[in-house]
């Protein structure tokens, strides 16, 4: 038995691969930005004294963290459909991924918030800053800095997990691979190429987060020390 690989037959479909990779990156970008917002709000909500709000945030986080992503995607997809609402597969995928990564972000951000010493907040209160100003100027950035590695890993994981969006025929990288392999009968070659593309996408994201970190944390850039 010998392994016969025919890459050229598959590689000639490179425009499709490229389109799929771009769509995967777009999915990840939208879900990362929206999920970071949603998750941060949920983490703030979880810390409030209002039992209703903190209970709702906790229920959201626990529900999402204890159900499979694919099921969540189907719930959003069929849920919207049964309400008679029509959205593109891309919009549905972004919504589901946002809801998913938002829950993980909330848990990570909560750890970040808890790592801010009480004295920081008292000092800010003593300077007459408002609740919102304290979150914005004193808590948010140091909290993000403390959990930045965990946070960015979560977003890269999200990009990889977005491959299950192929199930609702969003035309992302894995969906593209699925039909290329059924077209060419070159499944192994196709998925080797897809794997390599995912690695490249991961590296692109990590490089992006590294650059963003330089912008967000000037103190770290200058001193090189952890907060």
């Amino acid at each position: 038995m010998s392994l016969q690989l025919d890459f050229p037959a598959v590689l000639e479909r490179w425009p499709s691969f490229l389109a799929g990779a771009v769509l995967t990156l777009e999915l990840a970008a939208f879900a990362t930005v929206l999920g970071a917002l949603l998750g941060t709000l949920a983490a703030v909500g979880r810390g409030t004294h209002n039992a209703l709000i903190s209970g709702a945030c906790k229920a959201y986080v626990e529900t999402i963290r204890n159900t499979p992503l694919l099921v969540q995607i189907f719930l959003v997809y069929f849920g919207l459909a049964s309400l008679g609402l029509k959205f593109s597969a891309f919009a549905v995928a972004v919504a589901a991924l946002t809801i998913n990564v938002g829950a993980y972000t909330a848990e990570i951000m909560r750890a970040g918030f808890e790592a801010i010493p009480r004295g920081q907040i008292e000092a800010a209160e003593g300077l007459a800053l408002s609740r919102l100003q304290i979150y914005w100027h004193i808590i948010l950035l140091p909290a993000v800095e403390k959990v930045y590695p965990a946070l960015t890993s979560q977003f890269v994981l999200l990009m990889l997990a977005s491959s299950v969006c192929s199930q609702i025929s969003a035309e992302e990288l894995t969906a593209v691979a699925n039909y290329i392999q059924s077209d060419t009968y070159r499944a192994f070659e196709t998925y080797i190429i897809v794997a390599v593309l995912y690695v490249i996408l991961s590296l692109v994201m990590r490089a992006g987060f590294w650059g963003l970190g330089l912008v967000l944390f000037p103190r770290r850039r200058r001193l090189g020390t952890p907060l």
Partner: protein
Amino acid sequence: MQQNTSSAPIVSLRNVQKSFGPLRVLDGVSFAVERGEVLALIGRSGSGKSTALRCIDRFEKVDGGEIVVCGHRVDRPDVDLRALRQDVGIVFQSYNLFPHLTIEQNITLAPCAVKGMATARAKDLARKVLAQVGLEEKLHAYPEQLSGGQQQRAAIARSLAMQPKVMLFDEVTSALDPELTAEVLKVIEQLAADGMTMVMVTHEMGFAKGIADRIVFMHRGKVHETGPASILTTPTTPELTQFVGTGNLKS
């Protein structure tokens, strides 16, 4: 509600009560601080000094009694906290500078965010208050690049930038070794000379004696003895006699 006539004290506590659970920490505390006066709160560990100080800036809510600070009825639930805290500056033992901001940003944050001061003016102000504490050259440093004494002086400068009517200090030198303590005390001395109204909790008896217009000696949640700085040399109660006698009175 506004009782801020020129003759009214800047800070006044009347019969203030405060418990943490079953623990009665303030048991009818009364004292007043006039404009330009320096009051030193002294007493054993656990006697309620920090709690009394924190009540003034409403970091603790009192259970009973009356607190008036610059015309604000601090004991009332409807007190305007942000207005109160614009009038009061507080400095803690642990500095609590914001580690992700430069010293300049630490100082300009509140004037800009709270008072809406223009950035350029706030930067001028930062330079001015840093000069006051002898740290002009640290404008663009981050807190971690400063020694403990420098951080504490920067924290004082940050408070001064809000132009408070009264400053509260809670053992601001007890985390520092003697050399750094001296540089911080010098700054506080200068503030006193400039006429700043101050309430300070301190273990530095020699310093309290030199700078305070009035001493309040707290014991078991009560003001046990009070008077001019001379009570430290000629205490009348056995408790204060013992307190100043147990090596607390070093110059």
